[in-house]
């Protein structure tokens, strides 16, 4: 495959629709040759590497309302698709109610890149390595999607179909992601194993969120999400169920970590082997769960 080392990109047409409806119509009528983009931090890299060759790039970040952060103490937080990660990190509402989201954003690349990168872009890119996806999954994220006919909402939990593949249909634009208010006493953590301490993509990433829950036998509910260990961002439901039904002890945490690693189906790649990933998925799951458990008490 040809690698383009030229500072510009392959030829394409930049399209800036005036309205959301116009954007959806354009995307729907240019099926395979058009692609929406926000910060471009993934799209441009993949275009340079020859993996993407869109004829049209449709810039949706300047559309009305897509740059808004809206917080309601009852309904929760809605982040417009074009809100960049540095704005998420700096938001007082995110700091106060969704610190896990800020932590996940801070683990992405560098400050200049985060001025362009967005959570919704990270999600739509549908990479199993997406650093912010674990936080969005454990926080119960709901995507607001504008299609050619009408707007709709989809749970993030059922959004991913495979690497780069999602349930989005022709002409769909994700306009925002919404998070309900996290359950009282929630504690979250994102552990990212990279080749260096900061800025690299993850070899394995583990997000854990825990909170007291009287509906669970153990008295606590834990949510887990794993990055870079399966074709899609992975929620190890058996591990979650195990912790809901067994008292939280070092042994049950260790068993949940084993179940979490068992759910993984990693691949060998430039960042690490499948075997290593599986081992680290277990270790990091145990570590994340123990740390969250410590903070809950």
């Amino acid at each position, binding site marked *: 495959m040809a690698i383009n080392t030229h*500072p510009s990109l392959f030829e394409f047409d*930049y399209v800036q629709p005036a309205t959301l409806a116009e954007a959806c119509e354009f995307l729907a009528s240019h099926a395979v040759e058009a692609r929406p983009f926000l910060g471009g*931090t993934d799209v441009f890299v993949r275009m340079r590497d020859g993996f993407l060759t869109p004829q049209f790039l449709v810039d949706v970040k300047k559309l009305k309302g897509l740059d808004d952060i809206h917080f309601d103490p009852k309904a929760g937080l809605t982040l417009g698709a074009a809100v960049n990660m540095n704005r998420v990190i700096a938001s007082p509402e995110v700091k106060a109610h969704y610190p896990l989201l800020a932590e996940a954003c801070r683990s992405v690349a560098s400050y200049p890149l985060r*001025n362009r990168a967005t959570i919704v872009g990270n999600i739509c890119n549908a990479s199993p390595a997406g650093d912010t996806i674990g936080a969005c999954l454990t926080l119960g994220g709901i995507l607001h999607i504008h299609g050619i006919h009408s707007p709709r909402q989809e749970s993030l939990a059922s959004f991913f179909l495979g690497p780069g593949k999602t349930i989005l249909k022709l002409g769909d634009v994700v306009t925002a992601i919404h998070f309900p208010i996290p359950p009282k006493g929630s504690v979250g953590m994102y552990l990212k194993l990279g080749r260096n301490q900061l800025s690299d993509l993850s070899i394995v990433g583990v997000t854990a969120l825990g909170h007291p829950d009287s509906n669970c036998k153990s008295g606590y509910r834990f949510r887990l999400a794993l990055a870079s260990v399966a074709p899609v961002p992975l929620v190890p439901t058996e591990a979650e169920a195990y912790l809901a039904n067994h008292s939280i002890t070092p042994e049950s945490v260790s068993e949940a970590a084993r179940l979490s690693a068992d759910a993984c189906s990693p691949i060998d790649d430039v960042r690490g082997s499948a075997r290593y990933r599986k081992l680290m998925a277990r270790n990091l799951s145990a570590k994340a769960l123990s740390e969250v458990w410590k903070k809950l008490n």
Partner: protein
Amino acid sequence: MAFHKINVTINNELDQLIVPSNMTLMHMLRESLALTGTKNGCSAGECGACTVLLNGEPVNSCMVLAVECDGAKIVTVEGLAGKKQLDPIQEAIVQEGGVQCGFCTPGILISSHALLKRNPNPSEDEIREALVGNLCRCTGYVRIIESVKVAARMQSVTD
């Protein structure tokens, strides 16, 4: 391929340019405007050599399309100094010997300048975190980080 007419303020001068869709901001700065202080390193948003200010915030100019800059304000390393006075981070990096080959320096200057604007008195950890996207293969970073600390002190004296 489509061309677009854009109005963009670069280093305090308003310019009108016609740019193709696929031209990056970095390419426009270097090739159309001969502002070659902005360097082309990785073209993938990893090395930070092409960092410029876009509406006051640092971005990797290899990851921004020129056409997206219609109506924007850009500051490159050429625009960092005042008419007769270097920016404190420029003074400091000269004084502290924070430059070796110099290729990463424009990006380091822009990222550090932006850091000191949003956080006039950063800790060493905060400096390191702010510069994580600016790779330097010569210095080992020690003198660069010292330079940012010295610039912070210079700024607090002049303020």
